């Protein structure tokens, strides 16, 4: 049987920019950054966690150029997947991200399941940060 989820893939349009955002701004850590020749294998994770996020650039050889363009179009329309993070202090997280200049279209909102807010990475992927109801 399956025992855990280890890697989730997220399309980004520029891996250096993604690294700067997810590590430099959001505070994740690099798990692996390796030049495989045909691709840059770049994964990040929440410090202390084992689950990694593969920051994958759409393009050859995995995708033909036309398909890669379609993926880029969908990413920038916000039509692809997103990431859901947890925090123990949602307001402090929001304040810290705002201080770092992250575009935050909404403030933390109390919901049935806790308090959360959403925003976009530089490419259009949705990122959500929640503090579960205690």
């Amino acid at each position, binding site marked *: 049987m399956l025992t855990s989820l280890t890697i989730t893939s997220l399309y980004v349009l520029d891996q250096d920019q993604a690294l700067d955002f997810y590590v430099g701004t959001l505070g994740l850590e690099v798990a692996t950054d390796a030049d495989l020749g045909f691709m840059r294998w770049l994964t990040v994770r929440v410090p202390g966690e084992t689950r990694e996020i593969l920051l994958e650039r759409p393009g050859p050889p995995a995708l033909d150029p036309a398909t890669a363009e379609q993926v880029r179009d969908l990413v920038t329309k*916000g039509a692809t997947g997103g990431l859901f993070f947890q925090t123990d202090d949602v307001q402090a997280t929001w304040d810290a991200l705002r201080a770092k200049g992250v575009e935050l279209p909404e403030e933390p*909102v109390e919901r049935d399941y806790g308090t959360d807010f959403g925003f976009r990475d530089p490419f259009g992927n949705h990122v*959500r940060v929640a503090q579960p109801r205690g």
Partner: protein
Amino acid sequence: MSRASEERNRAMLRARDAMDARYDQRLDLAALARLACCSESHLIRSFRATFGETPHRYLQRRRVERAMHLLRTTPTSVTDVCWAVGFASLGTFVRTFVRVVGETPTAYRARGPLPPVPACFAMAWLRPSGFGEAEDAAAALASRAC
């Protein structure tokens, strides 16, 4: 697909996110156009080209989605739901709701409570897909009312 179109997508997404966050306020095309760094007419054209509908129509669907959520997760009256999601008239709210959803707010509420799901999924998946498909149901309701 060019980098310019990706920039346009991103700008339109920024405007859409702003509407998602401020759905309860009057549609401010000038503010959205500033956010997207373009003119109001360009915003309307580009938004439609990017997402398949005008900002006004998107906002109406967003408001109806919020109303659907409130109706099934809170005991708030239909009138207060109408104000809470940004409609300025109860008549317009009910007409729009019936046109989009195919049934009245009261009938929709009678379906029972919704389970809690992350807000962005609720927004994306509870938002009705359009106006056209509910028109037959709305006509049937209207004929019954007569």
